[in-house]
């Protein structure tokens, strides 16, 4: 596969502050690449360097084999959808979408057909003459995306484009964006601090923290095998524990809960367990499973996401446990004692 974008050892230093630190990655042609990280970790700065609004302090950005050093934003084959959309309020929908095309040497009739085609594609036909201030959040979103896509960029950069939408609409746009990307085949680089957006839409996700990439992986691998404790804690829900000792293949948490985890070649300090890794009432004869007794503290009903919060009798650690979908544990109530099993492979240990 061709690498449409290659970022090599990229850094950005502001006065007395490092926003982006030695980042290396590549994006494949036609891919949906997400950068996921908490607020202030440097995502926007990274994107602004790719689009050319911010000059890199070190490193290089290569698009289709060409270094972008010194090339101004208007000359780069990338377009950006801004965090706040930045639609032109003095123009209507059609004029907004046509803005970029009019800057090129393209005939009027072609501009009209391409704008129309694009508006059809994002489901906005009939809105041509509307002012952008009269549109709903989701429609404004689509205008912003159409305005960039109509230029057929090599790469479309999106900076938290769904951030301003309400939850329902966000869920909807998430799927729509993914379908749109599949349909037109443009490479998307998508920034977000919402892990579900990143996991649902992307082929590859980079998790960013304090200006660095912690892990670049497929959504599935990121979830199943987080490489660092930051990723384990940030992606998906997890029960974190501090580990105070590791002897003879037995971990001890800070509250004194003992768990078997053989064959670690380092001394772990952190342990993460996903809520769905806990097995309620496990059958006795399973291999590699530790069983503990817990007392149900509360039931957190949330439809298919219902969890229980339980206290481990042995150590007073409090954990969140996902309830299986079947009706087996429907009658569970506060104060009940349950047996809970955890498989060794589901204990994710980290040394920092």
């Amino acid at each position, binding site marked *: 596969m061709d690498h449409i974008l290659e970022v090599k050892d990229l850094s950005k230093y502001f006065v007395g502050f490092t926003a982006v630190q030695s980042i290396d990655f590549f994006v494949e042609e036609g891919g949906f690449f997400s950068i996921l990280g908490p607020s202030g970790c440097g995502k926007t700065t990274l994107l602004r360097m790719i*689009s050319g*609004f911010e000059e890199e302090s070190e490193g290089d950005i290569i698009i289709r084999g060409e270094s972008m050093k010194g090339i*101004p*934003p*208007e000359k780069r084959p990338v*377009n*950006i959808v*801004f*965090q*706040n959309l*930045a*639609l*032109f*309020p*003095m123009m209507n929908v059609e004029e907004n979408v046509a*803005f*970029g095309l009019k*800057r*090129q040497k393209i005939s009027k009739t072609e501009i009209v057909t391409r704008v129309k085609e694009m508006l059809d594609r994002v489901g906005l036909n009939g809105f041509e003459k509307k002012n952008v201030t009269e549109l709903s959040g989701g429609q404004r979103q689509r205008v912003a995306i159409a*305005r*960039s896509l109509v*230029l057929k960029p090599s790469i479309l950069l999106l900076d938290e484009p769904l951030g301003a939408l309400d939850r329902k609409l966000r869920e909807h746009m998430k799927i729509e964006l993914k379908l749109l990307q599949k349909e037109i085949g443009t490479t998307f680089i998508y920034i977000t601090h919402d892990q579900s957006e990143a996991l649902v839409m992307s082929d590859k996700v980079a998790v960013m923290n304090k200006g660095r990439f912690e892990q670049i992986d497929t959504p599935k691998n990121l979830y199943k095998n987080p490489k660092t404790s930051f990723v384990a804690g940030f992606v998906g829900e997890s029960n974190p524990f501090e580990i105070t000792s590791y002897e003879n293949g037995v971990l001890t948490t800070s509250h004194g809960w003992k768990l078997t985890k053989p064959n670690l070649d380092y001394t772990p300090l952190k342990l993460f367990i996903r809520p769905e890794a806990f097995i309620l009432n496990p059958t006795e004869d399973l291999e590699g499973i530790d069983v503990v007794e817990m007392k149900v503290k509360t039931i957190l009903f949330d439809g298919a996401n219902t969890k229980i919060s339980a206290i481990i009798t042995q150590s007073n650690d409090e954990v969140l446990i996902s309830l299986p979908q079947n009706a087996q544990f429907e009658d569970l109530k506060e104060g009940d004692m349950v047996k809970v099993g955890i498989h060794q492979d589901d204990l994710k240990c980290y040394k920092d």
Partner: protein
Amino acid sequence: MKKRNLTFYLFIIPVLLWLMLLIVFPHVDLFLSSFQFENDDGVTVLSFNNYLSFFEDSIYWLTFLRTALYSISITVLAFVVTFPVAFYLTKVVSRKYSSFFVLLLLIPIWVGELVTIYGWMILLSDYGVINSFLIYLGIIDTPIVMLYTDFSMIIGLLYMSMLFMIIPVMSALDSLDDSLIEAASDLGASKWTIATKIVVPHAMPGIASGGIMVFMLIIGDYVAPNILGGKSSLWFTEQIYNFFLTTINWSQGAAFGFLLLMLSSAIIWGVLKLTGQKLERVGS
């Protein structure tokens, strides 16, 4: 209707008094006197003669035309000169320094029109600062006549009115989201396109209100055309002045005063219509 209490009246009465005594009454009085005309028998009658003489004697309406054209041109010039400065001060310079620069711009206002005009006279006169300097450099041998010409008048008017353009334009530009400029440049727009398609349209209400203020100030100014302008630099206000103080024909002066008010308002209305601006938006 809501019940008004005493405090409401206490506050509204000075406002009404001010509006009535200082704005409405004098204008009504002026308006009425503009129709008074002394006929051949020396009797004062009501007539349109004071207004008609404006159209009958070409010197009057030609002077008005000249004044209006100059005022429009200087207003446009004020925009051209101040817009880049306003853009620079709001979008490029950091906020900390820009307020300092605005204070600098205010200095001519503190000093007063008359003093700045004398300042320009010192600069522009035949053996003034500029001419002396050019002669010293050997670029010219004889001084260029700048003072008491249309040129010096334009400079004076421009200088005193620029500030009234720059402040509303700056406040309009302040509300322009920087990411709009970036988005335009991301979509391939040149600096010129960004200025004409994004920045100026956004600042249009500010430009319009600045334009109205500057135009009104210039067309109604008396001091700069009178002192800096030459013998041929006729200004309509000078004619009004003459009626009031030289020929002592107050009703004629009143009529011309009203003509100035109505014609300049008509010009503003026309320009606003032409550029598709709404007066309500300009005021905000």
